[in-house]
């Protein structure tokens, strides 16, 4: 029988002990005496969140396919267990073997959002691994980070030995093969890291020095070790249609946020929204093969027993075989009690047909993400959705019996004016007016419109990476202004307006575009008690502000400054394919309110063609051609 790391007494005094016992359906079991490498994969948030993440499931499967490697999982202990572990000095353990993480060869941490940075420090500290990479010895695991936030790893650079810049399918084998070889030769930690630095996509922060100018911006970012490359090149899996997909995902006992089979239908996005980091860093767009997805759906439902299946991608409507796939799922599994959960689709005849088949029209809602309230601002951000399309789609749905609409917007986008903000209120109202054009006896009661705004955060590797971000006060003023405008609308009683917290946004801005000098702030904030910052019940803005102040780090420098065109960014050493030159051109087009059509329509030579595939055309337009298009 499996032995657990925690005593009955501890498990029975914490909330949801099932978070810590492992042994779930499809969890791996391996004989630890028969493996060479022990890898612990971490999602630095609570179990239910971490278990819902597809990326970890993919990596878990890939690593465990190797017979010489045992990949296990660890998540952030919830606050009750965190306290108990500190009091009793219990080391954090991996779920499968229940062995201490500190005894592993690797600790891999996925970086999905900035607000989990303090939880990384929690995981390291509870694991009894030194928080700062430079303090680790030959006895400690190699700590490696990856995922979206590794596209600017600098704010957390001091806590990691390695960052992997790219998609998990490609580089882990080499990382582990080199590790075995290095071990066999009895090499030191630093010698191993020198070998790692030579693997494409691997970034070893300690091999680089940063110098700053008097004004605080970066003067130079240079390597200090000959083994390290000048630029770290993003790695992508180009053969996605046949790339391995985990058909036996782990099934948690407790209800996870994603309690369903998730099918990744494509990676990347052709749309090129200018605020969207994922749309740039996952270029080029690559689709998975339809027949392969059908096969995966079968196998995954069979191996997990899940009652629901959903599709995952940045823009499902752009998947070429979407109709065929969705109708297949409905016909094949709908009758077997499997719910088909639809991703956000462009509202058209197909979407409405599918929705009416899989959802209760009276209870479900339509979702639109116009992101900005006016056509002018939607052109700035290159969001192709028009008012006509929204109203047309909504009307079709209303005629089909729907009466609930959800709208998502951002406040604080570059060039935003009061009119743009007011546009959010008037668009919400117009949708309601559209509904009430239907004769009373033909409509389904009152319409309900929920408009939500988040605050815009400029992200690295987007055209808006140069952009000034608003302050917390400015954001709140914008939300209040909009609330007042909402209250002026004719159909105000049918519209509900929600907005996000501004303080978290400010912090997210600093962590997203910060440099190495932020590491100390994160460390101090953690030491003051900051943790689970993405959970409003734990987020403590004042502690963060104190940590910034005691380190003499100015938030305005990172957030409230329009950055110069030639400024060296902390993340410039990463080559994501998409060039800085393209992003700058896009930023200028944004200011000129000029839209850029999607990748399938026209290639604008963003740079992702270097990967040779996906939606990128085989013949790339030359420079002159591109200039002509720009002017049109």
């Amino acid at each position, binding site marked *: 029988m499996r032995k657990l790391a925690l005593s009955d007494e501890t498990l029975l005094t914490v909330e949801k002990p099932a978070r810590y016992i492992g042994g779930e359906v499809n969890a791996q079991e391996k004989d630890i005496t028969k493996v060479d490498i022990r890898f612990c994969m971490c999602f630095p948030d609570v179990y239910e969140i971490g278990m819902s993440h597809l990326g970890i499931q993919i990596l878990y499967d890939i690593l465990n396919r190797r017979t010489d490697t045992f990949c296990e999982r660890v998540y952030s202990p919830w606050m009750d267990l965190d306290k108990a572990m500190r009091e009793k000095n219990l080391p954090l353990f991996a779920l499968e073997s229940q062995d201490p993480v500190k005894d592993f060869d690797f600790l891999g941490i996925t970086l999905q959002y900035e607000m989990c940075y303090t939880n990384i420090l929690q995981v390291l500290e509870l694991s009894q691994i030194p928080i700062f990479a430079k303090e680790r010895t030959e006895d400690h695991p190699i700590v490696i980070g990856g995922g979206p936030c590794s596209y600017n790893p600098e704010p957390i650079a001091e806590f990691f030995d390695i960052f992997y810049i790219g998609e998990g399918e490609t580089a882990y084998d080499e990382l582990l093969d080199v590790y075995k070889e290095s071990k066999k030769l009895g090499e030191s930690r630093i010698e191993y890291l020198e070998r790692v630095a030579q693997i494409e996509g691997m970034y070893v922060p300690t091999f680089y020095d940063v110098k700053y100018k008097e004004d605080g911006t970066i003067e130079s970012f240079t390597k200090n070790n000959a083994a390290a490359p000048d630029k770290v090149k993003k790695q992508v899996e180009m053969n996605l249609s046949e790339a391995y997909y985990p058909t036996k995902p782990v099934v948690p006992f407790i209800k996870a946020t994603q309690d369903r089979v998730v099918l990744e239908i494509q990676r990347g996005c052709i749309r090129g929204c200018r605020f969207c980091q994922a749309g740039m860093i996952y270029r080029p767009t690559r689709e998975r093969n339809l027949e392969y997805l059908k096969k995966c759906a079968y196998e995954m439902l069979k191996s997990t027993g899940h009652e629901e299946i959903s599709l995952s991608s940045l823009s499902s409507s752009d998947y070429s075989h979407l109709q065929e796939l969705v109708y297949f799922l409905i016909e094949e599994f709908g009758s077997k009690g499997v*719910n088909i959960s639809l991703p956000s689709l462009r509202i058209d005849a197909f979407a409405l047909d599918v929705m009416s088949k899989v959802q209760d029209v009276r209870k479900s809602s339509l979702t639109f993400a116009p992101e900005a309230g006016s056509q002018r601002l939607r052109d700035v951000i290159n969001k192709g959705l028009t008012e006509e399309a929204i109203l047309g789609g909504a009307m079709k749905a209303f005629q089909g019996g729907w009466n609930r609409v959800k709208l998502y917007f951002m406040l604080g986008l570059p060039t935003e004016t009061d009119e743009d903000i007011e546009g959010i209120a008037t668009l919400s109202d117009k949708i309601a007016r559209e509904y009430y054009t239907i004769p009373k006896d033909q409509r389904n009661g009152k319409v309900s419109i929920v408009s939500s705004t988040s605050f815009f955060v400029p992200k690295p590797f987007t055209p808006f990476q140069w952009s000034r971000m608003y302050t917390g006060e400015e954001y709140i003023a914008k939300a209040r202004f909009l609330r007042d405008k909402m209250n002026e609308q004719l159909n105000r009683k049918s519209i509900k307006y929600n907005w996000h917290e501004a303080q978290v946004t400010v912090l997210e801005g600093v962590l997203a575009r910060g440099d190495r000098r932020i590491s100390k702030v994160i460390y101090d904030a953690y030491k003051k008690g900051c943790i689970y910052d993405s959970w409003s019940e734990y987020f403590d803005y004042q502690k963060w502000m104190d940590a910034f102040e005691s380190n003499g780090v100015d938030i305005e420098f990172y957030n409230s400054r329009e950055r110069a065109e030639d400024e060296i960014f902390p993340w410039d050493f990463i080559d994501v394919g998409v060039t800085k030159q393209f992003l700058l051109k896009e930023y200028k087009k944004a200011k000129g309110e000029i839209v850029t059509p999607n990748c399938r329509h026209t290639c604008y030579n963003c740079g992702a063609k270097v990967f040779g595939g996906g939606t990128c055309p085989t013949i790339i337009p030359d420079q002159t051609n591109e200039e002509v298009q720009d002017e049109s």
Partner: protein
Amino acid sequence: MKARIKFQKYGAMKFIGHLDVMRYFQKLFRRAEIDSEYTKGYSPHQIMSFAAPLGVGLTSDGEYLDVQLLSCDAPEIMVERMNIVSLEGFRIIGFHPLLDQIEHQKVITAMSLVTAADYMVSLKDGYSIQGISTQQEFKNKFNEFLAQSEIVVDKKTKNSETAVDIKPMITFCAFDEEEYRDKLQTFVLPEAALPITNQIVGYNIPIDSVADSYENGIRIYLQVDTGSASNLKPELVMEAFYRYLDLTFEKFAWQVHRIEVYTKDDESGKVIALNMLER
């Protein structure tokens, strides 16, 4: 058609709460491709009901759940199909298709007619009770405790605390397996009196108890009232025992293991295990 499934719950799975056990079985049935009946509507779900939900931290040899099926294989095959896709800690040990619903109304509604359950309560290793170091000493003290004319405890409900005499809610107790089986004959219908033996009874598969055993050997077998009419948790008996000894109750010191769940047989006045009803 309805079928009654009997299963064991043990090891690390004792930390899985009742609602998650339900989710576990819903997914298990799908993995085993069991032809469950679903509710109608946009979010169909399987129709199932559990008898006397087990608390977190308890292990069991006798858990029951009823399912509604459209078709099924022979019981032995059903048990095997389910165990192949089950985990260590959940073992299916019985599958009983239930007979004609109208004729056997009592069988069908038995889940809500639970009246009693057997438990084994063991002192975990690493814990001790002051003044008691052997099973004999424990037995003597416990018999003294039970010899009281009444055992009044404060029973907490959502809104209030009331003083209740729990003595009538304890059918019998025993201090080793032999004594337990002997006493069981008196209170349980004969053919159902062998719940933890290796004998094949009906569609049950041979089982060994999954109860954890501890070196100190201190343990007690109890049959207590269970169900909506009258319900006594073994933990409450132990707490009362500590109070009798004038000691502070250590709730984590005891491992509670459920052995069997019963309903009352009106004719004989005895109790009968839930999987014996249709025989």
